[in-house]
């Protein structure tokens, strides 16, 4: 059996009537990227903050790197690295000073020079934090999260608000982590990020885990169906025959989608109708199901709400 880096059992956290985390359980194998996926307010961040030691759970068990703990203690923190969703560094510290400072909090840590190289901030070593761009600040924060060469790394929304280039930089850092057998717990609401990085996904909504598995396992749960999507003018009316035969789902803004196990006849039906009615099928896409579809099928809502 795979070794477990982190096991969470029946975690609960409530704020008054609101159950932010409602009986969450999952296990993270060593050396994998584990992703908590879900829309804003799903409870991902609260769950992560409990595991990072920022909040205390009301109930539940936590086992970190083989140690059962009531709350995340100092010894555990020595072996963990955390990238917070929101946080700042002293604006008037230089980048290398930030690394030196945080390195001093651990019994053993990598050198600032190493970290500057690892996150590609060598040319910004002497720059003040306040002069860094968003992407650079995030790389700095990741570097700080990895300064103690942790076995377990928490990355809370690491690429939110970053441009595509910066996002890809972060993704390559994360990939390198698993190559060196580190376990990564990642939260995101970007489906493509989860699909591209995660080896195990846990989908949360309203404080509960609603699905768990590898991306392939989750999407294959939707069957072998192919998804066809296109856009028509909003007031378009489809003949009943077409709707029934193609199992059309009408969405907002004229978005129409269908799931089919038999692609050719479905496409043929739609194209025939388009030709005869004169209504064009704009932005047509034919694809395999993704995690967004999984979430949609489980909750009736999109990840990006």
């Amino acid at each position, binding site marked *: 059996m795979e070794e477990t880096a982190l096991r969470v059992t029946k975690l609960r956290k409530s704020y008054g009537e609101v159950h932010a985390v409602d009986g969450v359980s999952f296990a993270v194998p060593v050396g994998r990227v584990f992703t908590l996926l879900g829309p804003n307010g799903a409870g991902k961040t609260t769950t992560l903050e409990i595991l*990072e*030691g*920022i*909040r205390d759970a009301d109930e539940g068990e936590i086992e970190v790197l083989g140690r059962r703990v009531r709350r995340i203690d*100092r010894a555990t*923190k*020595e072996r*963990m690295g*955390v990238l*917070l969703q*929101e*946080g*700042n*560094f*002293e*604006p*008037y*510290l230089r980048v290398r*000073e930030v690394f*030196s*400072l*945080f390195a*001093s*909090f*651990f*019994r053993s840590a990598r050198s600032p020079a190493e970290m500057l190289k690892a996150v590609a901030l060598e040319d910004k070593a002497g720059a*003040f934090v306040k002069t860094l761009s968003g992407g650079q600040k995030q790389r700095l*924060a990741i570097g*700080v999260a990895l300064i*103690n060469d942790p076995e377990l790394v928490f990355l809370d929304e690491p690429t939110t608000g970053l441009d595509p280039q910066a996002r890809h930089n972060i993704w390559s850092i994360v990939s390198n982590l698993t190559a060196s057998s580190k376990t990564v717990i990642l939260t995101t609401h970007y489906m493509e990020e989860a699909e591209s990085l995660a080896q195990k996904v846990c989908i949360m909504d309203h404080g509960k885990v609603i699905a768990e598995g590898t991306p392939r396992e989750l999407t294959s749960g939707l069957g072998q169906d192919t998804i066809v999507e296109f856009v028509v003018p909003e007031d378009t009316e489809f003949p009943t025959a077409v709707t029934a035969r193609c199992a059309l789902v009408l969405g907002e803004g004229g978005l129409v989608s269908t799931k089919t196990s038999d692609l050719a006849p479905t496409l043929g039906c739609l194209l025939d109708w388009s030709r005869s009615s004169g209504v064009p099928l704009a932005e047509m896409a034919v694809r395999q199901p993704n995690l967004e579809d999984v979430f949609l099928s489980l909750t009736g809502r999109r990840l990006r709400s």
Partner: protein
Amino acid sequence: MNGILHLARTQLVTALRERITLFWFLIFPVFLLALMGFIFTNVGKTQDLTFEVTIVNLDRGTRGGSFGASVVETFRELATSSAPGHPSLFRLHEPEAGNDPHGYLADEIAALRIGKRAAVIVIPEDFSESLYAAAAGPKSADAPATLVTVHTSGGRTSSEMALGVIEQVVARVDQEILAKLGLFDAARAVTVDQQLIGAESQTFAYIDFLVPGVVVMGFFVAGLFSVPGTILFGRESRVLRRYWVTPLSVPRFLVGFSLGHLALCGVQFACVWILGRFAFGAHVKLFQPLAIAYLVLAIVTFLAIGFLVAALARTPGAGMAIANIINMPLMFLGGLFFPTGAMPPALRAIMLTNPVTYIADGLRASVGVSPSAYGHAASIGVPLAWILGCAVVAAFRLKWDVGR
């Protein structure tokens, strides 16, 4: 230990790199010392002040001459003579020959009212007659004095100061006239002297009184504003939270933070002392054990008060508001700059519970500037009680992270 030293260094360098902190904690105390040092060491010396003074001589004179004219002459001399490199004391305005002096006087008084003149001196018409009569009369010792009228402008300090100078000049002229009349023997004049007591050292100067006060004020402002500012802003912007997800504990953070604060106060002290010593010649002996103990006590007391403010405030804005409200009474009712004379009971109570009062008193006593008014036991005990009280409140109330 390493983490603690790094935190201390962080606290110090970030404070010094931020221009606004640099201003309030280094430049402002130095500026205040320079300004007050200059003012209080030069007070009473009006070398650089020139008073615009009008003199109108209405004296009719007598056959023997005109005393009025000699008075005018005295003022003319003062208006033309001066110490080298300094302007003269008066710029004198007089009516031109042939001008109607009463009309001129009315114009000058109008100018006085709006501040164009500091004083208008009027020598009355019967000046010489009255003086001769007073000198020659049998009971000259009891005769009422002849009066020179000096018009001043209400609410203007320059006018008041000019009046003071004019009174001294008139007193001198009075003596000269009496001496001329053989009624006063200058050789038997009284020697007038003055002595300042309350200073232990012989070479006391005002700056020796000011330097400890400004040093304590600097520490006070640093503790009251910088400490809650750093903590509350750090908490709100989640700079602190980045620390709490590492093995760094709150106690270690506190030690590092406090050491950094101590270093910042050290830099502040150095700047103030250097200015006092080399620009104003302060001799105050701050580098001896008891004085150093008071300095450290001051830093720690105000650091504790800073933590108290951070504990009482929920947001950085609220913290700064609280600090500003506390600042005034503690600073001004602590005897740092202003004498704490007759006060109503409420203010007296504040003064007697104010740690600044005792620290300033103890520090001044320890450097020999003035004797201790409260005794070293109180001067150390009251601040210690404050430290304890603030620490207790902060331990219970201070939140190190948002939304816990």
